[in-house]
Every structure is written in structure tokens, then in C-alpha cells.
């Protein structure tokens, strides 16, 4: 699902690496967790690519493997019990799974950064936010304390925190939820990374604040031409900001598509089920078409297509044959044996 590489332009700090490959290219990633009850395959052969300036949304419910994928790419997987057991993570042409720990650390934070869901627990409660932001410059850029502080204030202004100079000395708990999330964004942006991974960045926020934060993130992304991986369970948030979507289910990507195509005509029964099951603000329906059953336990993923026990269009072949990710038209892929019929149905409707 790589696309033609758009002109990235000269970015400070880049320049090495092949110019024809995407910014991030994950190939066949596998992550396992060893638990008391057996081995759980949290990520099972996931491949995707992100270009500079592009937003890829990874959509999934709890346990689908979306956050674990992000942690593996960032190199912050809890290990043990988690372990990357296969695949490649090519960042700017280099396989991050093969580089030394020290090299990995120099990439993390400086060239790829992460925004977490819960800002209050991601920030250090006993260090002022100005110090925490400034630390990025002291550690990675060798800035003096005074310069780092000035840079921190500048960053806080950039993420539109009112009275940034006065508030840089405040501690995380003195900020509201939305403001804390801005500080997280500021911290991720500090060293002008090429890739940002945002794991449910607005899930803990109220809708009016969510709108502010998403707007800010989108603005900054286009300003810096960063690649953005947005991990979420919210089909609504994604519709607005993503270029492409990858839908995950039980550790696998089951569908990828440009955002408009996916909502217009989903090519996988799970995606379709999700879209049909959410109540919509602009519609008053009588009965929601719920997806029956529950997502499977990762300790015992059903054989064949992992969605088959819940699928309304299941056929005998689905019980035994695991569907590969079929190419399903321009820039689209679906892991359903019957994606073509599904799309034809939707076009006929």
C-alpha cells in the first residue's frame, strides 16, 4: 500500500536514506506476549507505510493490537512480557529492529515522537512543565538551562497555551485536561520529529476540547510536514483528519483504504459492522445493527478468518482458510475472501 512518494523537500536532520521509500515502512510485524495462560499474538503480520505529511489512522477496538503496534514502532514495548518476534520496521530506510539500543534511543524523541492518551500520567508530576519541555533540548541538543527554558516557552506558545511565559513554571496538575494534552503535543514536537504517533490523543477529552486539540494537531502537522499515525477507536475523529485508514481486528489489519472510500463502501464485513453499529449525530435510527458476539481472546484466535464467528456473511471457506490481504482496487486492500461481492453489493445499493 505504498503510494508514490510526494516531494518531501529538504528537512533539517534528514538527508540520509533512500528517497524512493516511504518515511516509515512496517513489514510483517509480529509481537507476542508470554502470559501464564499461553502465548498471545497481539500483532500478527502487520504491514503498512506512512509518507511524510500523511496521516494514517489505525482503527480498532480494545485488544485489536493497535497500541502494541505503536509501541513496537516506538521501541517502548514492555519487554518482557512483550517481544517482537518477526518483521521489519524501516524508518527512513533503516531497520529499527536491527540497530543498537543507543541508536534507537537517538531516533526516539528526536526523529519520531509519541503522544499518549493520558497526559496526567505521562507527564512528571513533580517537575514544572517548562523544565520537562526544556529537558528535551538539554538532553538531545545540549542546550543550556536558560536556552532550554526559552525554547520551552516558545513551544508552549506554539501549541497556543495562553500566558505561556507565566505558566511555564506551573506543574502538570495545575493545567486542565486539554492544556495538558497541548503540553504533550509540545513535547512531541520539540525536536521537530519526522513522525508522530498519537495513541488515542483525545479520548480522555470533552468534545469541545477534542475539537481544539485535533485542529491544533492537524495545523502543526501540515506546518512541519510530519507523518502522523493516529491510533483510535473513534470512527468519527478519523473521518475528519486521516488520509488513509487501516482497520485492525485481532492483531491483523483487515482493511486499508483512503478515508473517503472506506466510509463510502467498506470492503470488509467488520468495517461495515462497525460503521452500522454506531449511532450517528445526524441520524435518528430505531435499531442499531450491532455486531454480534465479542472480539476473540488473543490466546485463542479462531482459525481461518478471525472474524468468521461474528461475520453476517460467513461461508464454509472462512472457517478454514485465512484470507490474505487482497488488493481491492486503487490503494485499497481487504482481508475478506468475498470483498468483491461486498463492494458490488454496496455499489448496487
Amino acid at each position, binding site marked *: 500500500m505504498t503510494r508514490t512518494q510526494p516531494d518531501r523537500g529538504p528537512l533539517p536532520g534528514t538527508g540520509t536514506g533512500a528517497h524512493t521509500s516511504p518515511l516509515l515502512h512496517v513489514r510483517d510485524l509480529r509481537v507476542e506476549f508470554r502470559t501464564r495462560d499461553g502465548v498471545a499474538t497481539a500483532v500478527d503480520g502487520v504491514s503498512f507505510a506512512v509518507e511524510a505529511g500523511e496521516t494514517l489512522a489505525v482503527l480498532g477496538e480494545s485488544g485489536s493490537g493497535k497500541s502494541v503496534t505503536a509501541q513496537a514502532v516506538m521501541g517502548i514495548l514492555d519487554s518482557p512480557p512483550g517481544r517482537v518476534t518477526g518483521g521489519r520496521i524501516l524508518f527512513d530506510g533503516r531497520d529499527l529492529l536491527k540497530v543498537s539500543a543507543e541508536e534507537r534511543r537517538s531516533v526516539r524523541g528526536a526523529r519520531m515522537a509519541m503522544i499518549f492518551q493520558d497526559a496526567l500520567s505521562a507527564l512528571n508530576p513533580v517537575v514544572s512543565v517548562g523544565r520537562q519541555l526544556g529537558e528535551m533540548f538539554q538532553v538531545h541538543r545540549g542546550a543550556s538551562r536558560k536556552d532550554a527554558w526559552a525554547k520551552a516557552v516558545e513551544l508552549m506558545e506554539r501549541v497556543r497555551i495562553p500566558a505561556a511565559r507565566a505558566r511555564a513554571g506551573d506543574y502538570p496538575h495545575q493545567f486542565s485536561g486539554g492544556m495538558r494534552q497541548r503540553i504533550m503535543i509540545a513535547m512531541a514536537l520539540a525536536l521537530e520529529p519526522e513522525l508522530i504517533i498519537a495513541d488515542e490523543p483525545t479520548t480522555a477529552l470533552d*468534545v469541545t476540547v*477534542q475539537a481544539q486539540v485535533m485542529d491544533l494537531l492537524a495545523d502543526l502537522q501540515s506546518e512541519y510536514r510530519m507523518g502522523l499515525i493516529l491510533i483510535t477507536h473513534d470512527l*468519527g475523529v478519523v*473521518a475528519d483528519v486521516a488520509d488513509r485508514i487501516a482497520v485492525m481486528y485481532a492483531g491483523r489489519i483487515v482493511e486499508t483504504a483512503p478515508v473517503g472510500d472506506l466510509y463510502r463502501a467498506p470492503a470488509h464485513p467488520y468495517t461495515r459492522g462497525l460503521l452500522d*453499529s454506531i*449511532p450517528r449525530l*445526524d441520524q*435518528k435510527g430505531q435499531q442499531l445493527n*450491532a455486531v454480534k458476539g*465479542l472480539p476473540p481472546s488473543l490466546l485463542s484466535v479462531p482459525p481461518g478468518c478471525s472474524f468468521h464467528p461474528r461475520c453476517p456473511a460467513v461461508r464454509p471457506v472462512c472457517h478454514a482458510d485465512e484470507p490474505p490481504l487482497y488488493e481491492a482496487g486503487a490503494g485499497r486492500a481487504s482481508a475478506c475472501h468475498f470483498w468483491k461481492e461486498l463492494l458490488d453489493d454496496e455499489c448496487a445499493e
Partner: protein
Amino acid sequence: MTSAPSESPAPAGPAPHGPREAILEARDLVKHYPLTQGVVIKRQVGAVKAVDGVSFELRRGETLGIVGESGCGKSTVAKLVTSLEAPTSGSIRFKGEDVTRLSGRARKALRRNIQMVFQDPYTSLNPRMTVGDIVGEPFDIHPEAAPKGERRRRVRELLDVVGLNPEYVNRYPHQFSGGQRQRIGIARGLALRPEIIVADEPVSALDVSVQAQVVNLMERLQDEFDLSYIFIAHDLSVVRHISDRVGVMYLGKLVETGTESEIYEHPTHPYTQALLSAVPVPDPAAEAGRARIVLDGDVPSPANPPSGCRFRTRCWKADERCAKEEPPLLVPGAGPAEGPARHPSACHYAEEKARIVPE
């Protein structure tokens, strides 16, 4: 939800089951939590005005949705209605009887009729009790509801009603998924055959595909048992789906009330408009032609709310009048004489705005 001023007319649009009587009536509900200073000698230095003058009514068989952001007081309203907290002032009448004045036996009897379903199915079920004990516990507190010999059968019935296998009575909560746990919570809420169920964010903690199952279940149970719901949530899409009438709360007050279509298709309060415009719609095509209002700033502290209209600090329409005069929750005097925009709205400059919700 006709509110404090009695001259406001009955909401437009036919009720789903014809006109029904009000089963619960809240008048000028106030709940202030005192803020104290000092360790040995405590003195009150202020109060968090969690709920500050809220009036509404709930009719038999309907669902009243209450929406608002965190800290607006919607959960406090739930606690007041279920008598988990006593109001600072105001009254709650259940079938004409003031709940807040009752005590002892009468109060206990009344509580049977108003049950609650909680948000978090992981913390609202005792992990050391079996499902059978959890669902049957209401019978221990209200023994008159079911004779001892019959309880086990009733519990199995209840599990069946909420779509759980009755064979699971001896399992523990950790053996169930989030959606199943919420079904257990609902079964417990139903055990005493209440007339009203107050559900505080009942589906917020659930995955999208499971949310729909629980919402559908609640709708089916409502028809089956003729229940009245107060459905509290921050998710405006879910509230629209399930509610007949909707109240929007901001900083301890109701700012706009009306039928589901009045609120969602013809909102007149700036806060409701901003709230609705901020909800993402899972459809890029519909999203494209939409008016977006992005509010500045955060919700002020309920310990020190702004003077006059509480929303004025974030409102693009605010002027001097809004700082001085608090707008009452009334049908606006200006504007069209008829139509769905005529519903109570607590704004001096209430007016419809186009393209808030995609059509």
C-alpha cells in the same frame, strides 16, 4: 422537560406513546459541596456549585437524555434523583411525593422504584461476589420484593432477560467481558422491577461494536417493562439515538431543553451549537459542508462560576448584558412564533444556526 417557569408550553411534537403523565419532577435542584479550610477548626470558604437550580420532568415510558461535558453536574443530578446524595435545596417528586423529605422506611420503599446503572462495569460489580449474588442482592435489601424460595429462579430469569446464559449464576465478574458485565449491572438494576432507571454513562466504557448491543438491550427492556429512563452521557450521538427529550447542561445548569429533534436539528443556545458542531461524524462527505464552531478556553471552575450567563466567557455572542443578567431557561421571545426552534433556551440571544449537524 418543561423547566422552572411554568408558562413554557408543552414541547412540540407528539410523544411516542401519546401523552403520558410525569412520573418524576425535579424543581430547582441545588447541590453545593462545601469547600473547607483548616485542619482542626474547619471553616467553609466556598462551595462547588455542582448543580445550581435544575428543573425537569420525566414522563412515564420516555427516555430523558442529559448531555454535557465533564464537570457540568450531570452525574450529580443522577445521584440526587436516586437519593444517593441529598440536595442542598429543591425538590424531587416521584408520583407527586417529595422524595427529599422522606426518611426511614418510606424512603427505602421509594428507592425500590428508582434504580441506577453505573458507568464502569469493572468497578461497579463486587469481584468477590458471584453473578447470582450480585443480581440477587437487591432482594436482601428489599426482602418483600421476592420470597426467599423464589429468588434463585428470579435471578435466572433476570439473566435470561438481559441476554446472559442463566447457567452463569455461579461465575464471578472477572469471567465476563465489559459488555456482559454491563448486562449484569442492568439485570441488578431491573431486579426490583423499578419504574425508573437512571443510567449514568452506561455505554461509555464499552467498545463500539458492543455499545450497540447494550443500547439495543436497553431499548428492548424499556418497551418490555414500561421503564422510564434518565440517560446521562457525554456522547451526543448515543443520546440522540436513545432519547425522546434532551437537556443540555453547562456548569451546573440546564441551558437548553427540548425534544430530540428540537435540540439536534434546531439548537438555539450557543453552547448546544458549539457542542454539536464539535462532534465528529463518521462520514467525510457529510463532514465537508459543515459549520464548525471551535470554542476557546476551558469550562470555568464550578466553585467560582462567571456572573450572569455562565457560558459567556467562551461565547462569541457575549456582551455586557450577559455579564449582568442571568438568562432564564425560557422559550425565546424573539424569533419565529411557531416551529421547532421554539423550545426553552437559556440565552439572551437564542437563535438557530444552520449546518451544525449535517443533513
